[in-house]
């Protein structure tokens, strides 16, 4: 383990390189790893050692965040397999999916008109989360079968990215609303 920084996130957590993952186990390992490298463990060490510890703690946080999120884990696995999703990539034309997107967007835009905008926002957030989670099973099937269906997985990841983006827009809207309301 001489080159910590070249280990991939799965190797770092001693986890099999696959999509399916026990998130409770991931958290246990995350805590054990941070306990061993966190800068607070090196509060009395020299500057060099503290720098190294921060570097490692940073990377473990990054790995935990990536593996802990279904879309990011899927995306990362595709990158490791040499199928990185490009920035401009389009999803395969899927009318039902596009329709759903439009509906959610409209619902989000209409939140301000509702009697309790914050409550409405929480409702939309719940719907987005439900849709997002709905992809989990399909992504596992595409990525973990032999041989893997990487193209199909790519399409699912791109769709999940839509929901992530929508979620971010919702967060920004919530911040604006809070500033206006309180």
């Amino acid at each position: 383990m001489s080159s910590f920084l070249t280990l991939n996130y799965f190797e770092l957590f001693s986890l099999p390189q696959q999509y399916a993952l026990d998130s409770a186990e991931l958290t246990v390992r995350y805590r054990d790893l941070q306990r061993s490298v966190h800068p607070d463990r090196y509060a009395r060490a020299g500057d060099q050692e503290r720098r190294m510890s921060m570097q490692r703690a940073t990377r473990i946080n990054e790995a935990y965040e990536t593996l802990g999120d279904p879309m990011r884990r899927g995306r990362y696995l595709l990158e490791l397999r040499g199928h990185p999703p490009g920035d401009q990539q389009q999803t395969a034309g899927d009318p039902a999916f596009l329709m759903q997107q439009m509906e959610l967007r409209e619902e989000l835009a209409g939140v301000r008109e509702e009697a309790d905008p914050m409550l409405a926002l929480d409702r939309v957030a719940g719907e987005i989360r439900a849709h997002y989670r709905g992809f989990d099973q399909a992504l596992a099937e595409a990525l973990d079968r032999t041989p893997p269906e990487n193209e199909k997985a790519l399409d699912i990841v791109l769709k999940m990215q839509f929901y992530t983006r929508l979620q971010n827009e919702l967060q920004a809207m919530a911040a604006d609303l809070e500033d206006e309301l309180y």
Partner: protein
Amino acid sequence: MALLQITEPGLSTAPHEHRLAAGIDLGTTNSLVATVRSGSATVLPDRDGVQLLPSVVRYLPDGAHLVGAEASARAVSDPLNTISSVKRFMGRGVEDIERLGSSLPYAFVAGASGMPLIHTAAGDRSPVQVSADILSVLRQRVEATLGGELTGVVITVPAYFDDAQRQATKDAGRLAGLKVLRLLNEPTAAAVAYGLDHSAGGTVVIYDLGGGTFDVSILRLNQGVFEVLATAGNTALGGDDMDRLIAGWIMQQAGVSDAVGHSLQRRLLQAARRIKETLTETGTGAVPVSLELEDGRTWEGELDRPQMNELIDPLIRKTLAPCRRTLRDAGIAVDEVDEVVMVGGSTRVPRVRELVTEFFSRELLVDIDPDKVVAIGAAIQADILAGNKPEDEMLLLDVIPLSLGIETMGGLSEKIIPRNTTIPVARAQEFTTFKDGQTAMALHVLQGERELVDDCRSLARFELRGIPPMTAGAARIRVTFQVDADGLLGVTAEEQTSGIRAHIEVRPSYGLTDNEIETMLRDSMEHSREDMDARRLREVQVEADRVLEALQAAVQEDGDRFLDAQERAAIDQAAQALSTASGGEDHRAIKKAIEAVEAASAAYVEHRMNANIQKAMAGHSVDEFKR
């Protein structure tokens, strides 16, 4: 083996020597210092047995200053030179302070680098200096009580403090001659004090309403690990605002205009505070108020609890929006919360407890004095960081409270690190040049959730220089934003195609540069020229001790495993040289010797750290997981 068996005067090799460490709660209204003695954390009183130090400093014409009760006693008669609630100005710009309200009785002047200075009889003082004066008193208190020099301190900050406010706090510590081991978020400190990780565990909400700031954090606790899931708050909302609302009511009742003098303003606020405190202790009846006005009239009136509740209700409800936000950010429903802990003096107000109980629909934890709980938690953490409890497994994983972004075209902020990301964290962003031969570029770093740059806090402007001249768009400049465990930002930049590291000039929007701090240290009365040199020497000697001590402990533990004879000899030699240099008086030579030790031991240190990681994962193998 002669390796590191060195005992120079002042250089300790005893492994279990108790190191003096303290936790400091630098509050808006009061400040406290606590330390762990014979296993338990206690708040240290002053000579008169008083634990709370009012965060008030009074500057005198002869350049001297008074801190605490002696200072606040003269707040009414000498309002312009008596600075209170200075925490509200930390890391803030002049415009921010104007926005805080016209009721501030101080004379502000704009200093260099955008930092406001308060004009006093003893000269212009920055909020950082005023805070340092408070910290110095607490430092003297600990050192006098414990009879020795402090190894280091943990200073608490509101979780919702942005980078500039944190940096200002750390600078104040440095200016007060303290080694700041860590800036700890106040809600996290409170969770540590309650020791909830062992008893209750689960999901805990910390509701922290202080004199001037409000924080709410949601933590997940598990056997020594305190993991912050989300945090929100308002750094300009607290008990002081309740006082202001009550004072406003008095003014209205007494028919006094807004344009009252500084002295009446102070008396109004003091009367308001007295009413609030009395109505907090006694439930029924009205509190009589009498106040001498500027025109010589005396106004008399009374206020009861229902009336006060009506006045402060909007303010308390304002704290519930951040509560909602943290729940949403953490992805937690109200009924999934296991405990709600109340922190901060303002949570004594019964109406606050009522509304918070109602919001979370559960009983509140109020066992530890809400004024002391933060300092106690900080003391426990300081004790561990100082190395007094090597077996302790406690780990605090905090988050960045506000998103970090950079300014892009059109005055928009592009988020680089979203809020509630666990720290330490680093994110890289690539930039390119838009002109042929361009060798420099400016970056503006922002903190906040809003899209428009003007709605975010300006943290710093960076200039990247030394970019190799290329055609437009050819340079690839990778800028890395690193937030450390204190929540402080650092920036590095590198041109990818040439590998040239761009020079970064940091200009904090409302902070002090390193040079300014150096100058302040030199200018301050306590530190004459000789003191400065002695201090620098002492600092580097302490660092040398630290390096040698850590290395010795490491080599004793596993030197045989990781070092061959040659490596060991090289380390031995460098350590020997450092020990010799450290006995001398040349701080540059010591610094050099430290660097030599670091260079000689770099591979070994890295090896050890990686072995630690491996050990942490040894219990969990890939195979075990597959089954």
